């Protein structure tokens, strides 16, 4: 793979350096705000790895975020395992869960896969509520408190870099090519020798792994969460909108989508409290109906052949 020396690379490097140095100048609220943006980019990118490249729309993706959060929290709290191993294990559990769940669920078509995953996520929420001996149930889970917010900035940032890196690899590798073949026409891909079963499960697992990492970081960062918080369907909603708004199946898509939506929310909540979600709804409707290239074109290309 040649390394092209072009403007886009310089721009990207400049951005990364800027974000890496930012904590020297910013703190407090601004630091937290940007860390949140990183979190959303990570989540949107994780969904993008699955939906953008295989075309499977996962309406329950928050499940993997929640699994990461709970495993990390439980390991740290009950077994005293330090953060990094706990988070890593949480992410692996998320990834494996995705593969296990994917085996039966990925046989479903389009909307049924989406609904099936939604049901899975909702079910997990109630499982977390019921198993209150382990998960704290409705009382939530309180982790040991660590307030070095610069630390969280950097690990969220690192996760974003990881997710982008994997997305880039999807774009350039043979594996990624196989995925895109599945996205365009699964049957044709199968026929031409792509092991679709294996490939899409791997993609699902990787995307869940990333979501699991973000979940683990979230748990430690917030020091407290409860089932309705980390298994919230609205989180999946945001992920989907961010990924599609920016452009599913692209590297920059999740970044742009997440940043844009976060900016809107910041703008709106102060002045127009209720209208954030209404605006989001309008964006979705307008995008689906009227933007033929860009978003819808991508959906047509990427997701169309699914059904």
């Amino acid at each position, binding site marked *: 793979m040649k390394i092209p020396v*072009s*403007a*886009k690379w310089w*721009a*990207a490097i*400049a*951005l990364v350096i*800027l*974000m890496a140095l*930012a904590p020297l*100048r*910013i*703190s*407090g*609220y*601004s630091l*937290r*705000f*940007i860390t*949140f943006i990183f979190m959303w980019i990570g989540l949107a990118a994780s969904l993008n790895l699955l939906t953008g490249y295989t075309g499977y729309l996962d309406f329950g993706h928050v499940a993997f975020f929640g699994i990461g959060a709970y495993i990390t929290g439980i390991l740290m709290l009950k077994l005293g395992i330090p953060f990094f191993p706990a988070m890593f294990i949480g992410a692996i559990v998320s990834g494996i869960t995705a593969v296990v769940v994917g085996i039966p669920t990925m046989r479903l078509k389009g909307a049924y896969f989406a609904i099936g995953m939604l049901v899975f996520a909702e079910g997990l929420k*109630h499982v977390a*509520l019921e198993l*209150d001996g382990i998960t704290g*149930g*409705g*009382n*939530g889970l*309180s982790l040991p*408190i660590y*307030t070095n917010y610069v630390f969280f900035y950097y690990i969220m940032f690192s996760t974003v870099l990881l997710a982008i890196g994997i997305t880039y690899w999807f774009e350039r590798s043979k594996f990624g090519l196989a995925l895109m073949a599945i996205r365009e026409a699964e049957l044709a891909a199968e026929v031409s020798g792509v092991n679709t079963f294996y490939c899409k499960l791997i993609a699902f697992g990787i995307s869940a792994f990333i979501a699991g990492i973000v979940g683990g970081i979230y748990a430690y960062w*917030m*020091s*407290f*969460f*409860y089932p*309705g*918080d980390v298994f919230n369907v609205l989180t999946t909603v945001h992920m989907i909108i961010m990924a599609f708004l920016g452009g599913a199946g692209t590297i*920059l898509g999740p*970044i*742009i989508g997440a*940043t844009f939506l976060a*900016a809107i929310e910041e703008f709106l*909540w*102060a002045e127009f*409290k*209720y209208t954030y979600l209404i605006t989001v709804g309008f964006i979705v409707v307008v995008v689906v109906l009227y933007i033929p290239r860009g978003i819808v074109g991508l959906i047509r290309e990427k997701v169309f052949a699914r059904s």
Partner: protein
Amino acid sequence: MNRKNFEITGKIFILLIAIFSFLLASSIPVQAERQKFLFGSAIAHTGKFARSGANLKNAYDYWAKRVNDLGGIEVGGKKYPVEIVYYDDKSDPKTTTKLVEKLITRDKVDLIFGPFSSLCVGPSSTITEKYKVPMLEAAGNARPLFKRGFKYLFCTLRPADELADPYLRLLTRQSPKPKSVAIIAPKSPFYMSAAKGFKAYAEKYGLNVVHYETYPVEMQDITPILQKVKAKNPDILCVGSHTVVAMMVMKQSKEIGFNPKAYCFSFGTLVPDFAKELGKDAEYVMEYVSISANAPYSDPLFGTAKHFVTSFKREYGISPDSTQTAAMAGGIAFIKAIQRAGVIPPLDEKKRMKVRDEMAKLDLITAAGPVRFDPTGINEANPLGISQYQNGKAVCVDPSDWAETKFVYPTPKWKDR
């Protein structure tokens, strides 16, 4: 370079510019001096706690207005008015956290008034603890919040698991004496804490707990649970509740013909909505109160309890409920702590620490009740009474020196009403 690269570069540059301007905007210089005390509060204006958040905000505003009517907080011979900056946390704990950090680092508030609900107090208090900013909250009294060893969190409510005391104390004095109790609650920290309290005090007062059940918060149809409870025929029903839970219990109890001799709700019935939506079906329900117009409280700045309760009622149409009373008491506690610390605005870390130390030492009576924080930061001093709905109004029935009228027991059966 080709078109695609150009697009991508363009997008990156736009992002760069956006971030730059954001960073620039965030380094706004702050005024060195301020002639007023600035309080911050991230509180629910929207979301599932919107109604309760609005009620709590009313209480904070009521306090602020009274303080400013007096000219402000007097320190060193000069009076400093107060102002409260509010942000909407959408009933979401992570938003509360974000906004509390914003209030502290951007708006540079002196002190924090807490959000509604233990769910939101929990994570946001880690921020105030980190920045060493005292938070006074009146709506998050689930016991686990106070087991974390925090020094900057103060709550003027009594702990949720102690709320059961006044109900059962009153009920076990009735004759014929009730023997059995059923306890239900949705699965969320406050309700579960209250339910645990009901159980502990039931055992303390010699009542038999015939049923104890918690259920998912989303459940609207609790008739199956009420049916189970009905089958065990308890004398008393205790519910870890907020407004909508209480409404559903009353409505569905009537539907299935469940007639306990008393309904005890831990919170949520003392709002105008409850009686408005239920009408006659709201009668006889009990909820704890931490004040009544007849309570023997008074303080030099705000007058008597009677004055507080009646003027609050005049302004908002209903007597203050437990969180509103606690908010008032907490605000007064802040004033005392500020005065004893002798600090003037703006507060820096050292001054805030002084305020914090004074808060921890407080032992006083306010127009809204006594305030003395135990070592974990929660109020241990204020006695609790009971209010009951009679003829569409919530009246205090216990203890006797607070009572406005007699307690009605047992609750008449549905078909006899």
